[in-house]
C-alpha cells in the first residue's frame, strides 16, 4: 500500500488547526472531501474498484456542496424571511387601520342625530365614502400576502432539493423534545382558528350545550 503523501496529511492537519473552531456543515464537508481524496490516492495503488468508489464519493460530496451553496442560507435568513415578516406586519397594520376607520364611521352613524334628515343623509354619505376607501386595503394586503406565499414556495423548493441531495427521509430525525411553547399550547388547548369546514359549527356547539348529560354528548359523536 502506498503511503499517504506528506502534503495530503499536512492539508488535513492544517485544516484541523485553522478551522476546527465552530465547525460548520461546510467545514465538515470539506474535511470529508479531503479525507476521501487522501484515501482515494492511497487505495488507488491497491484496488481499482475501491479507487472508483472513492472517486464516486468525492463526486457526491462535491455535488452536495453545490446544493448547500444553492440553498443560500444567509440570503434566506437575513433577506427572504425578514422581508416576509415585514410584509405580514404591514398586513396586520393595514387591516387594523382599515378596521378602525370602518368602525369609527359606523359608530358616527350610530350616534348621529337623525331628526334632521338632510344633515343625517349627508353624514351617512360622507361616512360611507370613508368605508369604501378603507376597504381598498384588501388589494394591497392581497399583494403582500402573495409575496409571502412566494417566499414560502422558494424555501419549500430549496428544502426539498437539499433533503433529496442529503437523502433525508421523514423518519430520520431524532425525537424532538417538546418546547415550553408547545407544552403551553397542548395543556391550554390552543389550536388557533380552524380552516373553513375543519372546526365545529355553532350548531354543534349549541347541541353540546343543550345536552343534559354525558349520554347526550356521547350521542353527538355516534
Amino acid at each position, binding site marked *: 500500500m502506498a503511503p499517504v503523501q506528506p502534503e495530503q496529511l499536512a492539508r488535513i492537519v492544517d485544516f484541523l488547526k485553522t478551522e476546527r473552531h465552530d465547525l460548520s456543515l461546510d467545514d465538515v464537508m470539506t474535511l470529508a472531501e479531503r479525507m476521501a481524496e487522501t484515501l482515494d490516492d492511497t487505495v488507488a495503488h491497491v484496488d481499482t474498484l475501491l479507487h472508483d468508489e472513492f472517486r464516486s464519493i468525492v463526486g457526491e460530496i462535491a455535488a452536495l456542496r453545490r446544493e448547500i451553496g444553492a440553498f443560500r442560507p444567509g440570503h434566506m435568513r437575513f433577506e427572504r424571511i425578514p422581508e416576509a415578516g415585514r410584509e405580514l406586519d404591514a398586513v396586520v397594520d393595514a387591516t*387594523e387601520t382599515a*378596521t*378602525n376607520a370602518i*368602525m369609527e364611521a*359606523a*359608530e358616527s352613524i*350610530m350616534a348621529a342625530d337623525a331628526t334632521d334628515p338632510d344633515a343625517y343623509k349627508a353624514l351617512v354619505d360622507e361616512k360611507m365614502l370613508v368605508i369604501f376607501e378603507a376597504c381598498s386595503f384588501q388589494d394591497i394586503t392581497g399583494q403582500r400576502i402573495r409575496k409571502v406565499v412566494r417566499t414560502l414556495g422558494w424555501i419549500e423548493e430549496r428544502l426539498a432539493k437539499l433533503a433529496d441531495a442529503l437523502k433525508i427521509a421523514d423518519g430520520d430525525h431524532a425525537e424532538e423534545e417538546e418546547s415550553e411553547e408547545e407544552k403551553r399550547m397542548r395543556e*391550554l*388547548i*390552543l*389550536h*388557533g*382558528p*380552524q380552516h373553513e369546514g*375543519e*372546526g*365545529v*359549527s*355553532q350548531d*354543534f*356547539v349549541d347541541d*353540546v*350545550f343543550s345536552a343534559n348529560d354525558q349520554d347526550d*354528548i356521547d350521542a353527538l*359523536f355516534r
Partner: protein
Amino acid sequence: MALDLTMPVLVVDDYKTMIRIIRNLLKQLGFDDVDEASDGTEALGKMKERRYGLVISDWNMEPMTGYELLKHVRADTGLSKTPFIMVTAESKTENVIAAKKAGVNNYIVKPFNAQTLKGKIEAVFSD
C-alpha cells in the same frame, strides 16, 4: 336569573378591535355598563374589585388564557356563580367539551353576529 340590562359586563380580549366590536354589539342590545380587560389576569383583578353580571371572554390570550380564567373563576367561591360566555376562534371539539366541563355557560364560535351574541346571552339568563 333574569336578564338585567343595567348589570356591568366584562369583555376580555387581547384584540382592541374585538373588544370594540363586542362593546358596540352590547350597546345595540341595550347594555351600557361595559368594562374591558386584555387577558385573564387583568380580568381576574377587575372581577375581584367589582361584581360583574356577565363575563364574555376570548380563549387564546397571554399570559392567562380565557380557559384558565374560567377555571379560576369557577374555583373562587366569591366569583364561581358569575355567568361566563366564551367567544373564540378555537373551534375544535375538545375545546368545546373542555369549556363545558370547566363550567362555561355558553360558547360562541368566531366569527359571529349580533343575533348569535344576543341569543346566547338570553339563553344564559333563561337557564
